């Protein structure tokens, strides 16, 4: 049974997403229960997978019994299992949260948004589980299309923003496909492990350089690596409340994961991927500073969070690029930390907008009085984003800094310090408004309007996880992150 976990974790949400719209014709209540059940089962499967991989080691699963390199192979190692837990956990929390704010909307197609949400989850899980270049493309498109549909579930500016995302995203996916095509033409294989072996025999021809570059650029767009992040701010800013928490927290991370997987596990022997890693490192340094700088200039809280994500992707990539153990630990740990804390921030920002209509920093005046628990969670996550101890964000920053000192990368240290100071400024602007300003002309109401418990629960859980990841990072790093590093580091 347990080897099948690798495929079940993808199949369960995929199959549920097909069944749910049909069930939705008959009963709306059953749809929600069914979707919740599917998410819970997926999370349990992912946890089981992580448990097995940590006790018994990695394994690979061959779809339909076809042996690789001809058949599709799913690879379960600590890295992919950990990502699967992260994705399914965030999906469950945001699904619960969404149930709180979606109860009246979208009644024409009951079950549609639940189905799309499950489809998105299935796509992202597929990306992390698969060991096949083309299969990765398929899941990339599945997740993207589900995301486009979810993002347009509200009228208004999100339609334009999503159309732009669709165009950019499709181009990016096509670049990835083109690159994969080059590599397939050169080696005749799509299996990642096999591709790595054959390419290391083939050496660095111009065709390899072209193929790898296209794959990297395609995924870099999806991961919103500066300066390819243009689609991200509008998309996140105008995204519907119910989905931005999930999309903002994990989608770019999954693309960053794919980049990491391909550059360090598949193409690690190629000179061109070494060059790509160096380039990504420099872009990451610029991203860290530029993202924070642009976040500073925003008046809309959600847009501020979006630009902050651009900077934070830089933290993840710089960890990979520095390439020593502490830096990679920092980068991988930051994937987890940033997903949790940014998810928390987006859920609060969405909840505040849903409850009070407030979106700008000024309109947050007095929010600490109106939504005390949500804003307390916001505070915890914001402190973590700045990287203040003892939150999770401090420790990923610590590992990155240690890695940077070991690598003598003084520019990186300067960038991290500047970015932390800038993020302190833009987050404390919101915190000061929320907690130390009385409600003013922007925001005359001052009565307590805390989020309903269905929405508050996930927010508070994420804030607690931020604290726990900080205080208890030792077991997580030693027993999990250290095992997820590439074999040759």
């Amino acid at each position, binding site marked *: 049974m347990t080897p099948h976990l690798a495929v079940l974790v993808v199949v369960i949400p995929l199959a549920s997403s097909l069944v749910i719209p049909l069930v939705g014709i008959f009963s709306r209540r059953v749809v929600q229960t069914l979707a919740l059940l599917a998410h819970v089962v997926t999370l349990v499967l992912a946890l089981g997978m992580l448990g097995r991989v940590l006790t018994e080691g990695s394994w690979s699963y061959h779809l339909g019994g076809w042996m690789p390199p001809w058949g599709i192979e799913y690879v379960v190692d600590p890295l992919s299992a950990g990502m699967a837990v992260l994705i399914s956990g965030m999906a469950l929390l945001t699904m619960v949260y969404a149930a709180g704010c979606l109860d009246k909307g979208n009644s024409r197609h009951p079950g549609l948004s639940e189905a799309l949400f499950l489809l998105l989850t299935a796509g992202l899980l597929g990306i992390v589980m698969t060991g096949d270049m083309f299969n990765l493309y398929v899941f990339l498109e599945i997740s993207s299309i589900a995301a486009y549909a979810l993002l347009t579930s509200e009228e208004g500016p999100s339609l334009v923003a999503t159309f732009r995302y669709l165009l950019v995203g499709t181009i990016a996916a096509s670049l990835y496909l083109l690159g994969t095509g080059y590599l397939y033409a050169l080696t005749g294989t799509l299996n990642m492990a096999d591709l790595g072996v054959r390419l290391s025999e083939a050496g660095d021809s111009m065709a390899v350089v072209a193929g790898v570059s296209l794959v990297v650029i395609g995924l870099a767009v999806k991961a919103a690596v500066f300066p390819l992040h243009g689609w991200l701010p509008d998309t996140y800013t105008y995204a519907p409340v119910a989905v931005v928490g999930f999309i903002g927290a994990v989608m770019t991370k999954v693309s960053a994961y794919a980049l990491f997987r391909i550059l360090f596990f598949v193409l690690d022997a190629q000179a061109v991927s070494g060059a790509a890693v160096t380039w990504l490192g420099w872009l990451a340094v610029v991203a860290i500073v530029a993202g924070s700088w642009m976040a500073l200039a925003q008046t809309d809280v959600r847009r501020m969070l979006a630009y902050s994500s651009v900077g934070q992707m830089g933290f993840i990539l710089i960890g990979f690029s520095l390439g020593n153990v*502490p830096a990679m630990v920092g980068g991988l740990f930051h994937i987890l930390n940033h997903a949790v804390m940014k998810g928390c921030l987006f859920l609060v920002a969405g909840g505040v907008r849903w409850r009070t209509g407030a979106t700008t920093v000024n309109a947050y005046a007095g929010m600490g009085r109106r939504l005390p628990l949500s804003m307390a969670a916001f505070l915890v996550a914001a402190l973590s984003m700045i990287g203040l*101890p003892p939150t999770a964000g401090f420790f990923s920053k610590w590992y990155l*800094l240690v890695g940077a000192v070991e690598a003598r990368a003084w520019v990186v240290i300067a960038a991290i310090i500047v970015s932390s100071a800038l993020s302190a400024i833009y987050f404390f602007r919101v915190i000061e408004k929320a907690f130390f300003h009385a409600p003013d002309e922007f925001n005359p109401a001052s009565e307590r309007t805390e989020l309903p418990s269905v929405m508050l629960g996930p927010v508070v859980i994420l804030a607690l996880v931020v604290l726990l990841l900080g205080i208890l990072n030792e077991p997580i790093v030693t027993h999990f992150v250290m095992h997820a590093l590439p074999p040759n580091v």
Partner: protein
Amino acid sequence: MSSVMDQLLDQRPLIAVMISLVAAITMPLFSRHPNWREGCTLLAATLKLFVVASMLSAVLAGETPSSASILLPQGLSLHLRADPLGLVFALTAATLWVMTSLYSIGYMRAKEAPRQTGYYVAFALCLSATTGLAFAGNLLTFFVFYEVLTLSTYPLVVHTRTAEARSAGRRYLVYTIGGGQLLLAAIVWTQVVAPGAEFVPGGFLAGRTSDVAMAVGFAAFMLGLGVKTALMPLHGWLPAAMAAPTPVSALLHAVAVVKAGAFGVVRVTGFVFGVDVLRAINADVVLAVAASVTIVVASIRALGERNLKRRLAYSTIGQLSYIVLGSALGTVAALTGAIFHIAAHAFMKITLFFCAGAIHVQVQRDNVDELDGLGKQMPVTLGAFMIGACGLAGIPLLAGFVGKWQIGVGAVEAGYPVFVVVLVVSGLFNIAYFFPIISDAFLKSSPVVGTDARPVITAPFVFSAGIAIMLGLFPDAGFHFYSLARLAASTIVMGPNGGGLP
């Protein structure tokens, strides 16, 4: 049974940190019952003082009560333990918390200030952080509490919610978080050079890296810590932060926050780099000159300030640099003086702030030229003020003289008698900016009618003025601050095993 008891006794540094943390968590439950809430504060403050003071005899006997550490990857840990230097700071903070709690109750109730629960909670958190960084056993632990201190002070700075307070709060955060990040970089560098190192008297970096790297690392440490120490030109936040309520200025901006910086300077010079390394890279002279410039310039700026609290703030900036100067000179006498001054300055400066607050509450006067004749109206308040001011000016038989004398002796020992001149000039300036206040208050006639405040307000500063006299006459009375300072100084200079009381 006795081993369980011993283990519990070893946890006292952690318990001391936890007491105020628990108080901070409990107090919101009593937000509608001011008496219970403030009882909670007083109880926690008393308990904490008891726990901290109970370690005194063990530490004087050369032991180091040490809590179990929380392990982190790569040989890192969060670790609390009480050494002589840490105990000086923790005892000072714990004693002053009791006094400030009493004073706060009188002051905040007299002003009918809003949001008092938040005020007491943030105050308790600050004390937790201060104790934590006093007992920190390594740089990472120190940094964690250093940043917690920054964050928990911020709500106190903006407590009044006025535009002025908010802008002061912003400035405070920019300075302290910026400095904190630089400090973090320096700590990370230390971690790479000496993985997993704990504080060692005499330093642990000697011979580990090149002189140039050592100089850059030390500069990063001093710039990072210099913000909270208000080393010029990094002092801009401190006068602005005087917008906070007076008890906050008293405990936090004259004692806890700025002392955290000065304490950090002593820790880093004495327990990370060590005197010999600093001499080898000439950092001792550079730091001493920076401190001297701060001492003199701050004194001149204090002369020009009309607002009493801001004048006190500049006086603080100067006095803190005595501590920096002492730790830069690095002889036993200079270090003893610097460490003793951590405690002595705290008692004198808190007296002055409490008096300024009492004047504010009783006659609503905030400027130095409006205090004419108040000495006759409020003899106890202005009397205590005079003791504190004379102490800071370094007049013999008061607490300030002891530290200053030792630092002066240290300057001669170290071969830089020029710094004695700095101390003398600074003393003259101190008299120049305090004497007119006192003489006008006692000799001119009064345009206002007022009386001394209620005992709950006057008792704390009468007590602290008493301590200022006591420490001047008998530096080792009470909590043995002088012995502790001497013990810490001799271990710094002679290494962990070379120290000991004479």
